[in-house]
């Protein structure tokens, strides 16, 4: 019987590049930026890395295929490098690979690194995809904002929330993230915005305006993991140890996109992944027990419905919690304390690791001016795809023993 991942693997070090329009660097250089910080934090040599997982989503826009780009960029000692891709949840997938390898006893120290270089396409927004040979012949002519905007119409219809209230609510989601991002020197967007600015911004995909959409950014993030025993031996006396409490991934199987039992207003996978993660981590009252979280706020509406899918807000009531400030930095459960995808930015392959990076910094008390008071449990929610067909990761980390 599987016993889960709780406290079996510790994070030895983490690093994250500055996110943003990194005209100065390609993916190869961004990888090194995140890697050097993680290595300094871990206090190990390259020769100690026994295996690596490398995540990037739109490889045709930057590094190309395979694990080789990572191996070369970091001059790894000819170890196994596995490239993983699972839409926008790719970063969490890399982390999962490294953590599982350590938990399995296949290696002592493993590295996970995610990178995305999106700003070499010549146009704004996410690059257009190559979705195979059949989908282009029948799939709707969608962009990412339009696909996530679907949630808004279905949520309004289900919960009877009027258009203006919903717009104001998702507006607050973004205002909050901008306020947080302004305190993060690595964030892509570090500017406070007003509700008025958000509500009056040009529409990208009804009802989402410019400020309802996250940044399209370049960046990389890295984690080095090992066993709690090795971590304890490498860390100095009295240093706190951060361990993995839960790692869950749930993927759509076509129900949402093909079966009329799904009403379009929520993420079927997120509810499943969250339940499994709470179970794995031993969390019974998430609203009280989770200290903070980073969720996949690719669009403001995604964050809103995710508050319900993670069982923090009651179904149909997240909009009230948002408007009450429950998820603000000084609220009951701070969300996107680093600015989130919205402001820290969204270099796809790196995002899942970036979320963990912030939780890690907060747990260790290293988050500077945005440091929360004594957090013990941090949760990340990393989603890829579209509401009707997606990959959802929920991870929980915390202090060893918490």
């Amino acid at each position, binding site marked *: 019987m599987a016993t889960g991942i709780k406290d079996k693997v510790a994070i030895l070090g983490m690093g994250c590049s500055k996110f943003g329009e990194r005209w100065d660097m390609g993916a190869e250089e961004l990888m090194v930026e995140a890697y050097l910080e993680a290595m300094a934090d871990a206090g190990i040599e390259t020769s100690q890395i026994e295996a690596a997982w490398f995540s990037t989503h739109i490889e045709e826009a930057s590094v190309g295929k395979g694990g080789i780009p990572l191996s070369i960029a970091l001059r790894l000692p000819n170890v196994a490098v596995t490239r993983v891709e699972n839409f926008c949840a790719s970063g969490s997938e890399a982390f999962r690979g490294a953590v599982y390898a350590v938990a399995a006893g296949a290696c002592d120290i493993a590295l996970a690194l995610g990178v995305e270089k999106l700003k070499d396409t010549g146009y704004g927004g996410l690059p257009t995809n190559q979705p195979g040979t059949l989908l282009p012949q029948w799939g709707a002519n969608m962009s990412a904002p339009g696909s996530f905007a679907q949630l808004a*119409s279905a949520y309004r*219809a289900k919960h009877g929330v009027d258009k203006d209230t919903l717009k104001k609510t998702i507006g607050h989601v973004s205002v909050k993230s901008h306020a947080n991002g302004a305190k993060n020197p690595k964030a892509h967007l570090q500017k406070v915005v007003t509700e008025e600015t958000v509500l009056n911004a040009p529409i990208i995909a009804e009802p989402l305006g410019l400020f309802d959409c996250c940044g399209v950014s370049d960046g990389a993030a890295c984690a080095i993991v090992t066993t709690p025993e090795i971590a304890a031996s490498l860390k100095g006396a009295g240093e706190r140890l951060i361990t993995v409490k839960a790692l869950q991934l749930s993927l759509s199987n076509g129900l949402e996109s*093909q079966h009329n039992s799904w009403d379009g207003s929520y993420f079927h996978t997120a509810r499943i992944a969250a339940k499994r993660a709470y179970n794995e981590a031993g969390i019974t009252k998430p609203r009280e027990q989770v200290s903070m979280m980073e969720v996949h706020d690719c669009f403001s509406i995604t964050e809103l419905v995710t508050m319900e899918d993670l069982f923090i807000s009651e179904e149909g009531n997240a909009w009230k919690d948002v408007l009450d400030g429950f998820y603000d930095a000084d609220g009951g459960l701070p969300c996107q304390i680093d600015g989130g995808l919205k402001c820290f930015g969204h270099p796809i392959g790196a995002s899942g690791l970036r979320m963990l990076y912030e939780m890690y910094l907060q747990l260790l008390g290293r988050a500077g001016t945005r440091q929360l008071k004594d957090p013990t449990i941090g949760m990340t929610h990393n989603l890829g795809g579209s509401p009707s067909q997606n990959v959802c990761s929920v991870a929980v980390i915390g202090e060893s023993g918490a």
Partner: protein
Amino acid sequence: MGQVGITSFGAYIPRLRLNRKAAADANAWFNPGGRAAGKGERAMANWDEDSITMAVAAARDCLGNFDRGTITSIALASTTLPFSDRQNAGLVAAACELSENIASSDVTSSLRAGTSALLSALNGAAAEQGSALVVAADHRKARAASAQELRFGDAGAAFVVGSENIIAKFLGANSVTVDFIDHFRGEGEDFDYNWEERWIRDEGYAAIVPRAVQGALDKTGVAGADITRFILPGTLRGVQQKAAAACGIPPEAIRDTLAANVGDSGAAHSLLMLAHALEDAKPGDKILVASFGQGCDALIFEVTEAIASFAKPSGVSGSLKERKEETNYLKFLAFNDLVELEKGMRGEKDNKTALSVAYRKRDMLLSLVGGKCTKCGTAQFPRTRICVGPNCGEVDSQAPYSFADRPAKILSWSADYLTYSMDPPQHYGMVTFDEGGRFLADFTDVDLGTVDSGMEVRMVFRIKDFDEKRGFRRYFWKAVPITG
């Protein structure tokens, strides 16, 4: 030879109607004389419509009540077929879910193609006792500021001919073939080249049409005076009156050419007018339909008692009501590829089609056929090997299941300004079918600001993408919100 005739009919006119004054005013600086023609409106295909999609729409209107399994052949008449070599009629047949065991042909290269196709089908039906589908559609392009730009209109019409349940009995026909070049369009050319109108009127219509019409009257023994509905497309003033008078056909029998509110739909127009004439025809009506183009076809029908119980299609009258005025002449130019829009880098996406995939999935892509699980009854699109039913999961259990005509509603939607679209914002959303099944579909023929969850939609066959690099275009089904 057994009795044959028309057993069903249908029509389609795109809902956009270009305000002719808007077009004439925009071009008045260059062609001040064009202002006189700046009256009424012309049918204007949406960016995702062409002769094939209009033919499909007309055929679906025609086949609404008809047992499709009895169709043994299809002919598609048009001078603007999207493919020079890839049978266009076969594509229409697939979109209409006709059997693959049928004969098919494209009939083209003359504005007379519509009546010629109908005549061949009638002759074939008489010989073989089968039901033949005849569809005609045209989407002709004209240069900016030309007279044709305002005269043309885009539309399609469809008929089933056969020997059972005849609503208009075929009495006989006569054709004249003369290489009279009033206009022509050479290979690879976008536009017609036109000769002087007075010559076309006097030496063309006035001389050639009566030869064909009188010949048909003589062959069938019908007197011109007994014709109650006389159909002759033509945008030149007085050609209908002259031809009728020459053959003793009463002036009150002359049918409206739909010039004021549709325009001339080329090879489809004679059949469009015939469909229109049948919509309020009474038993005993004698209809003469003539069509001019390098000669002339003339066919005579007599409406039967069966017309009274015939379930009428939406037809021309239905299409005329479903109308949206378009006053933006530049949009008309853009939709007809007459101005080069800056499409941006998102417009550079390669739309190459994997033809082997298109063939393997042809019932899904062309006919909107999914599957219905024979174990749990779940309807699903697309059809897959393992059932999507949450408590089912049966393997290879799905029987083909048609979605095109099933009632459906919008579950979720958005109007997207980011994705590349010929008609932004691009509307799309999750469309759920009342009896099961759903998919994320593009919407078309949408009025901005009217879409909402719960709205009813109907499915239409439209152009999905153009592959400009290779001269290909692909088609799929879209949802049209039903307003009002």
